């Protein structure tokens, strides 16, 4: 075996080991969820057959049909409004000479580092005083505010990559700013906006603390919140049904990840480095 081949074998072994460590917890709950209902299984038993009973039980007992629906409503509201507002703002910051960019960016930087755990109390009392707690708005509105700093930074970096000559030529011909954005720049921004959509979808889908605080009615729970109640109430109950419930909640993000994994990874890795 020559030097080069030995290096490759070492690299493959490291990645295989890493992959096994990552995948083990997933397979272990997948086996648990697919196991025969009521049968005690331990960590190392391979299931004797595939049973979907736990998935059905989790779906009907845990209220996940409404949980998944609520989560989709919240995600749709947050993602669409955030992308709309952030695109306009990032365009103005990058392509139009707006005064005071530096202080405005410093202001946005606060939101990028701020642990939102510390401001949820105030959000709760504000929402309650406007009778908005326990509604979709109590989840959608704060998450738009929290998503905006990252989105503006991300979109602004993408606007920067488009040469100014394009928009300036149109401006000399007297085109309106909004027309330039829609007709000339947006078509070039589609990949960046798609990546941002995927990231915002994931973050909003997985959000937990805000839902825990704002939502009191069982029918209004988002999927992760429904899962936490389900897992909490049955802590000493059947772990197989809890495992099936966890898979229901993870499934939508997982499906999108399988198709768009490059966007997730490049979005988070390059998005982080750009900052």
């Amino acid at each position: 075996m020559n030097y080069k081949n030995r290096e490759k074998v070492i690299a493959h072994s490291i990645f295989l080991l890493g992959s096994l460590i990552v995948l083990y917890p997933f397979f272990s709950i997948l086996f648990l969820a697919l196991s025969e209902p009521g049968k005690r299984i331990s960590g190392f038993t391979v299931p004797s057959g595939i049973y979907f009973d736990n998935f059905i039980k989790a779906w009907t007992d845990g209220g996940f049909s409404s949980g998944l629906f609520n989560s989709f409503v919240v995600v749709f509201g947050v993602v669409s409004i955030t992308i709309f507002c952030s695109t306009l703002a990032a365009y103005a910051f990058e392509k139009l000479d707006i005064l005071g960019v530096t202080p405005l960016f410093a202001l946005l930087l606060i939101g990028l580092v701020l642990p939102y755990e510390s401001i949820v109390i105030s959000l709760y009392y504000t929402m309650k005083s406007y009778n908005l707690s326990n509604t979709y708005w109590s989840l959608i509105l704060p998450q738009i505010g929290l998503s905006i700093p990252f989105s503006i930074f991300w979109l602004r970096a993408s606007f920067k990559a488009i040469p100014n000559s394009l928009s300036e030529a149109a401006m000399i011909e007297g085109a309106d700013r909004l027309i330039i954005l829609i007709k000339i720049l947006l078509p070039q921004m589609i990949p960046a906006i798609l990546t941002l959509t995927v990231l915002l979808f994931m973050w909003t889908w997985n959000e937990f603390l805000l839902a825990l605080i704002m939502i009191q009615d069982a029918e209004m729970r988002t999927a992760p919140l429904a899962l936490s109640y389900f897992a909490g109430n049955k802590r000493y109950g059947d772990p197989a049904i809890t495992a099936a419930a966890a898979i229901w909640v993870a499934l939508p993000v997982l499906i999108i990840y399988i198709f768009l994994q490059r966007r997730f990874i490049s979005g988070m890795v390059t998005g982080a480095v750009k900052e």
Partner: protein
Amino acid sequence: MSTKNIYRPQSKIDYSLYLYILPAFIFYIIFVLFPLADTFFNSFTQWNGISEKKWVGLDQYINNLQNKKITSSIKHSFILIIFYSVLPIIIGLLIAGIMIRVKINGMATYRAILFLPQILSMIVVGIAWRWIYAPKGPLNSGLDFFGLEEVSRAWLGSFDYALPFVGLIGTWVMFGFTMILFIAGVQKIPTELYDAAKVDGAGAISEFFNVTLPNLKGEIIVALVFTVTLALRNFDLIYITTGGGPGTSTMIPSMFIYKKAFQMNQVGSASSLGIMLTLLIFTLVSLILIIFRDKK
């Protein structure tokens, strides 16, 4: 709306430009900056969420700093930084150091798998690990299999082991991310630098410290900021795995904020703890940026 300003006259400000940033800033101000200011104000009061707020100055801060449970929760956060940041960064750096110039097939698949823990809800991750650590779960079954029945226990129910075992979940979540980040960074380092080091007779170890490490500075800053803030916030995972217990052995500040505000009705005290957590994170992030940028 005038579009004549292609010559960008400095004298006249075109206020219509601000309409573009207005919607975003309305959301940002109402739902982020205002709550932050409100929390700051509440942190100087005593308030149960219903009655009149009573101004108490710095009392809440002093009480928090004198409360042993709270100071130890901050200590827990620092222990979690070892598991969330230090371990994944060391693992990532070591592997990136080995991977210089290695080009293998299937890298995209490995990357997709290693990144997986980043995309999932921490509630799902917590439930998976709760099963692994369960009294009759895979970890204990594995120990029994090797004849180590005496070692097996309810890991998350143990005063001594709950915190490091929750920390290990953080290591599991983070190590794929740091690996991908650092391997991508290593591949951007010009090979001439390594050739030059070889000519100078550098071994693998000096190559790592003199070429790899300094050129990964940007990636290391990113990894530190990302993992340290997560270690300090970390609400979801603690909530679903231990809830801060047993006792207060895995209690962290964000969990205290939740309990104080929503179970004990101590809104003023919770707010001051929130401001303390914010300041702690801002300080650590600034420190990371200052320490690592200056060494250029």
